[in-house]
């Protein structure tokens, strides 16, 4: 059921969501679920879960599920409106911050800021991978696929796309066992 009249509301909701997502869109999932399922009745809670899974299986940054919600509400225009409303206004802010940061190139405190923040970022990256593995590798087969993928990646000889495809095949085969 396509409902083009909901598009302004979609834009408003995802515009707000973009600016309230700190530390990534994942942090706003409960809020989004409340609005989309309970409050606006855009989608059912099963559809919310399914669209999330679809978004995870789609390449690109991990926020593709908003397209799915927009699509269910108002078709292709709805999907595009949801994505762009979440992305573009925040992107403008990010751009401004990036260029302001650039203007501080010769600031005397710049070296300590750079060197102090990089190890923190490394810790964040490690924590992100840890959480990801913790949530996905819930059995021995899962742990094996993660280890094999990490190992293949670290050899620097295997294209990551191939690793991903192999992962998909492994997932399919192990479900047949």
């Amino acid at each position, binding site marked *: 059921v396509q409902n083009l009249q909901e598009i302004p509301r979609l834009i408003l909701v995802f515009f707000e969501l973009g600016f309230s997502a700190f530390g990534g869109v994942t942090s706003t999932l409960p809020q989004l679920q409340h609005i989309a399922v309970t409050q606006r009745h855009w989608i059912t809670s099963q559809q919310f879960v399914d669209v999330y899974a679809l978004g995870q299986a789609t390449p690109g940054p991990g926020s593709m599920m908003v397209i799915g919600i927009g699509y269910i509400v108002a078709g292709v225009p709805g999907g595009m409106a949801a994505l762009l409303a979440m992305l573009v206004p*925040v992107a403008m802010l990010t751009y401004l911050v990036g260029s302001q940061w650039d203007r501080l190139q010769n600031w005397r405190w710049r070296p300590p800021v750079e060197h102090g923040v990089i190890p923190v970022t490394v810790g964040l990256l490690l924590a992100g991978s840890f959480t990801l593995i913790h949530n996905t590798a819930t059995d021995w087969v899962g742990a094996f696929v993660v280890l094999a993928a990490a190992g293949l990646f670290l050899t620097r000889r295997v294209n990551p796309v191939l690793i991903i495809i192999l992962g998909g095949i492994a997932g399919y085969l192990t479900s047949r066992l």
Partner: protein
Amino acid sequence: MTAAAPETQRPSLAQTIRVLLVIGAASFGQSLNAYFQRELCDKRGWITEDQLLEDISIAHVLPGAVGGNLTVLVGRRLGGAPGAAGALAAIYGPGAMLMLIASALYLASGRLEAFESIFRGLALAAAGIAAGNSLSIAGREVRTWRAAALAPLAFVAVAILHIDIFLIVLLLGAFGIFLFRDECEPKKRSLPLPTAAKLKTS
């Protein structure tokens, strides 16, 4: 405008879009950082690893999708405003198309079960790639005692204590700046003599 450091070379807008389109189509679940690292830093030298890590931390502090923020910051380094807009379109374009198609198929069939095991395999492989990439970055970047103190603190705060990432970047970032405060460049004055003398004798 000096967006790129002297040791990097800027690609044309067409080159940027071509490379990022491939990354956009290939980077499943959280492997975006790994692709940026390998394709933009290691293979092409368009940005340095330190620049990428700096952008990753800014992307975490700002509101919005972290991957989207990172794409804008990296795109800006590669080609200013057109670079940022082109990068965003290239990184999101392939996935957005696929997601629209997948949503249409999903609405038409109403079920996902058949694909769940494949999705799980994709997510596992992507988690492995992300982990491999973080480990190799950690191996290169954590070389001083100060870095070795900060990185595990951030890891424990996020992964074990589940403290808000925004807060962690602010608080531990401030602590990091404090630890590295001796690298603060001196005010415009020539070096005091004792330092120069000490350097000669050692």
